[in-house]
Structure formats: C-alpha cells, structure tokens
C-alpha cells in the first residue's frame, strides 16, 4: 500500500525549519527519500534502514521509527535550493526491490 505523507504542502521563509512525515500501514524494511524539482527527475537524498541510524544529507536529516512504521525528514535552516517535492519511498519485507512512493510533499522556500 502507498505510504502517506504529511503535510501535503509547506511554505517556508529562508532559514526556517520543516518536518515532513511518511507513514505506512505495512512493516517496512527501508525508507528512501527523494527530492524532485519542477520538470526534473527525482534525486535520491538518503535511505533509512530498519535498525539503522539517523541519516543526514547536508542540513537535511531523517529518522525511522520502526515500531510506528514512520519516517520523518527534517529540513533545518532551509535554503531556496530546498524547494521542490519530497517523496518517501518504502520497501516492505516481502516486497523485494519494489519502491512504493508516497504522494509527495511540496516545499516552497521563499526569500
């Protein structure tokens, strides 16, 4: 089943922080985060593994709560370049290699 992301959209000023959540009803093995800018391809940010550590990409970090089957993406001191649509992709145990993406969260960072 498709993971659910929240919020659907966020508008920030430069320097502000944001959190994007991703929840699944299935037992997850890994969560993959991607960012897609308008008219471009999704670009990999980071992967969270079951039993793994919190990950970081520049000033963006993420966590994975295995008990709740949830992942959160933390954007700290946002920059204009962070604008885009963020997708979480989940891999469930028994769903080998198949990434199921959430509906996306659109982030707009304003000067």
């Amino acid at each position: 089943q498709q993971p659910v992301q929240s919020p659907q959209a966020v508008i920030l000023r430069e320097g502000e922080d944001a959190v994007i959540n991703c929840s699944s009803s299935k037992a997850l093995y890994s969560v993959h985060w991607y960012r897609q800018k308008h008219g471009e391809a999704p670009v990999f940010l980071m992967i969270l593994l079951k039993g793994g550590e919190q990950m970081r990409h520049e000033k963006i970090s993420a966590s994975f709560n295995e008990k709740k089957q949830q992942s959160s993406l933390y954007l700290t001191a946002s920059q204009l370049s962070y604008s885009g649509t963020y997708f979480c992709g989940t891999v469930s145990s028994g769903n080998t290699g198949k990434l199921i993406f959430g509906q996306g969260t659109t982030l707009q960072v304003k000067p």
Partner: protein
Amino acid sequence: DTAVSQTPKYLVTQMGNDKSIKCEQNLGHDTMYWYKQDSKKFLKIMFSYNNKELIINETVPNRFSPKSPDKAHLNLHINSLELGDSAVYFCASSHLTDPFTDTQYFGPGTRLTVL
C-alpha cells in the same frame, strides 16, 4: 556524462498511435525500471528488469510492453495510445545487490501527451 538518459524528452501524439520510449544507463547497473508519474505527481512503478529478465510487472494494461535488449537498455513500447496514458514516464536503474537498500537513479523523464 549522463548516467540515465531517455529519448525522447517530449512526445506528442494522437490517440490510437503506437510509440516507444528508450532508456539507457551507463552506470553499470543490473536493474532498470519504468515509472509513470501522473498529473498529480503520483509516482508509480510499472516494470523492472534485472539482467534482461522481467522481475516486476505491476498491473499495467498489456498495451504497454517493456523490452530489454541488454542490461544497459530498457525500452517501453505503448500500443493504441489513450488519453489516460498522458504522463511523465521515468526510467531508473540500480545495482540490485540488495533489493531492500538499493538506490535508484532516475532519468530525466519523457513527457507523453496524447491528443
């Protein structure tokens, strides 16, 4: 040095026509994918090939037929195009050394418009 490339970038065609989209990766990956992204940005897997063998085949109309001549190429042929086929089609590739953790690298996408 484009890692995953697709042609064409844009494709505008009439209903009922047959069209193909080509994908090539120079990353040395073993696995390639086709995704469809609709107007609401929903990104859904369609097919996956590992070393020319079909390993993921989602519920997709049989008008869509993927073909992998070798592990660096994956093409998508669509017969009898319908209005609902209008979308952006992305090709992606990965190593598939560990299917649970492999990172997928996406191509630039092909925007298909069916009139």
